[in-house]
């Protein structure tokens, strides 16, 4: 299994998961109607009293109301993103008038904001013969301004992912399967740092800024990506290590008896069986690079701002004048792709968050 195979395997697995979720969602009404029919039948035949059924209905309604109350902020902001041009806080109520719904805010994000390209000035890619030292070089033509915040974000995240995976996976394997000096001590150190990512990096910001400036590393997207990877290492290494602990050693032994080499056991046993764990780590490491903005804002200059900083800037343009519709549209485009993957892999994420083995 080459790295490419495992990558496509991972993506294929994720897609299959999304598909099964969608199928589950699509058949939910059907299953619900069966449930109702069953209840009606039970009452008619006297298997359940009508009071018994009523109690279930009340509890279910109670649950539904609770879910709606908890998700109210997200519902509110989504309707807000559809109401470009109308005043959000007005006398007519909390939600904008549905008759004024439009996609103007999304149009603004795509064609005027810095989301994809600076000032929303799309252009087109062009291959140039000769120039740039190579035989063929690539450049973006038809635009004066250049790629926007999305590309900065993607660049940071790819550095974070590459560095993070390169260090987390081997380390998790070593912690799970090997004995070596200081193993316990390092692991304890990591555990101590599992929950203190974001706050800690803001706390050390003063020192970070001084250090980065003196080494000339400010305004460097590559170094910033490495920094996020560093922050993601303790939690994710620990997570993947607990995951690997649950794979019986006897599987590797059996493979070795069959003549597999050490690297074969990694490729054929460990990696395939760790896939769900790897998917969770992928999500967490991605989020580490994708969401952070305080450090990014301090260390980078405006032309290098990633999406998270742009979003923050829209949010804080003025204390009373946050352009809500534009903010909401920008935020939805920023957060939705990640949120979708997150919920597709929800079960694995939950297992990851409860740290495996915590129950009991």
């Amino acid at each position, binding site marked *: 299994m080459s790295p490419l195979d495992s990558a496509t395997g991972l993506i294929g697995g994720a897609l299959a998961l999304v598909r099964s979720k969608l199928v589950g969602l699509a058949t939910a009404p059907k299953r619900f109607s069966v449930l109702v029919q069953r209840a009606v039948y039970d009452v008619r035949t006297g298997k359940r009293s009508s009071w018994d059924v009523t109690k279930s209905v009340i509890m279910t309604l109670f649950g539904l109301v609770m879910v709606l109350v908890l998700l109210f*902020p*997200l519902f509110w902001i989504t309707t807000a993103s559809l109401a470009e041009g109308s005043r959000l806080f007005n006398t007519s109520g909390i939600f904008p008038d549905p008759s004024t719904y439009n996609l103007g805010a999304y149009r603004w994000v795509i064609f005027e904001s810095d989301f994809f390209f600076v000032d929303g000035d799309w252009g087109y890619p062009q291959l140039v013969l000769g120039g740039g030292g190579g035989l063929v070089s690539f450049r973006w033509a038809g635009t004066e301004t250049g790629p926007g915040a999305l590309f900065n974000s993607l660049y940071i995240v790819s550095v974070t992912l590459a560095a993070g995976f390169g260090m987390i996976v081997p380390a998790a394997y070593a912690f799970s399967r090997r004995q070596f000096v200081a193993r316990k001590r390092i692991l304890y150190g990591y555990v101590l740092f599992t929950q203190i990512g974001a706050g800690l990096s803001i706390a050390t910001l003063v020192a970070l800024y001084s250090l980065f400036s003196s080494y000339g590393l400010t305004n460097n997207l590559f170094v910033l990506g490495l920094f996020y990877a560093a922050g993601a290492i303790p939690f994710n290494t620990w997570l993947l290590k607990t995951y690997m602990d649950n794979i019986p050693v006897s599987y590797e032994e059996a493979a070795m008896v069959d003549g597999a080499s050490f690297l074969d056991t990694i490729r054929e046993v460990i990696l395939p069986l760790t896939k769900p764990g790897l998917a969770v780590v992928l999500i967490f490491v991605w989020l580490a690079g994708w969401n952070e903005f305080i450090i990014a804002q301090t260390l980078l200059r405006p032309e290098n701002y990633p999406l998270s900083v742009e979003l923050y800037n829209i949010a804080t343009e003025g204390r009373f004048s946050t352009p809500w519709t534009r903010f909401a549209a920008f935020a939805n485009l920023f957060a939705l792709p*990640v949120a979708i993957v997150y919920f597709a892999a929800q079960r694995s994420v939950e297992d990851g968050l409860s740290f495996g083995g915590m129950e009991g």
Partner: protein
Amino acid sequence: MASSQSGTGVSGLARLQSALPFSSRDWGLLLVAPGVLLFSSFMLYPIFYLFYISLTDATFAGSVIGGGAELIGLANYVQLIGDSQFWTSMTTTWLFVAVSLVIKVFLAVGIALLLNHVRVAGKRYMRAAVIVPLGFPGIFTITVWRGMFSDARYGVFNTILGRYNEFMSSLSAPELLLFDVPIGFLSGRWEAFFAYVTTEVWLAYPFMVIIIVSALQDVPRSLHEAAMVDGAGALQRFRTVTLPAIKGPVLFASILTAATSFQQFLIPWVFNQGGPSRQNELIIVYGYREAITFNQFGLSAAILIVGIAFVGMFMYVAVRYGGLAEGVGDE
């Protein structure tokens, strides 16, 4: 864990060992070293450097880098002890942690019980829905909450309270039950504190719900049924069956979310930068503010070191009493 199974797998591991490109027992360290190195240089080193800055009279970043700052020992810490702003910040931070933790625990246990109840249909979908807040970036959800807590007369909560007033007036309820709208959620001290706590609870309850639900699902149904047969009421069953099952996980989750609440920066910063008039500056905001706004790098570093020390204490408690590091040992 290799060692725990070594009793059965000695020959296999020995083979594994002999198949390696090099024979040293400690080669696993090589796999771990890059991560440790990266983590140390970007996380541990800055903490030590921060401690060094806290011992100097640095005023701005340039004076740290250019060597213009001089070591002044513990003077910054001494100054902190006499600084009323520091004590305001400390009190507010602890109050924030305590109040939000209590609400979080009750809310999360309630949600988890409801979403695990036999009578609720569609539990799985509801469970998926209630943890939605975890999937969105903090800057997004926190800004949305700021919008809902808007001081404006027609802000979301002020509109809701207005409606509530109209409704209560129509029932000719006493004045006492009415709200004085519009409420300046972000411009009053305790109003802002209330807004912080609400948002913090909303951000953190999903994590607790996940952990409690997974604990509840491990309680065999037969245990509940046995208790019912013995004539135990709902309350009694909660006390004797449910509570023992979720006590450990709730404690564990409490320590961890308390540690994250303690470091909360975004909520106060985005809402009103720890205002009004610096009364709600949680500890990290306080430290950040001293550096960014007032150019007091040395003092700021001292504040943040104190903050980090408290967080370290939380984590120590989590490891010591919460069973956080259960998988580390080699027993």
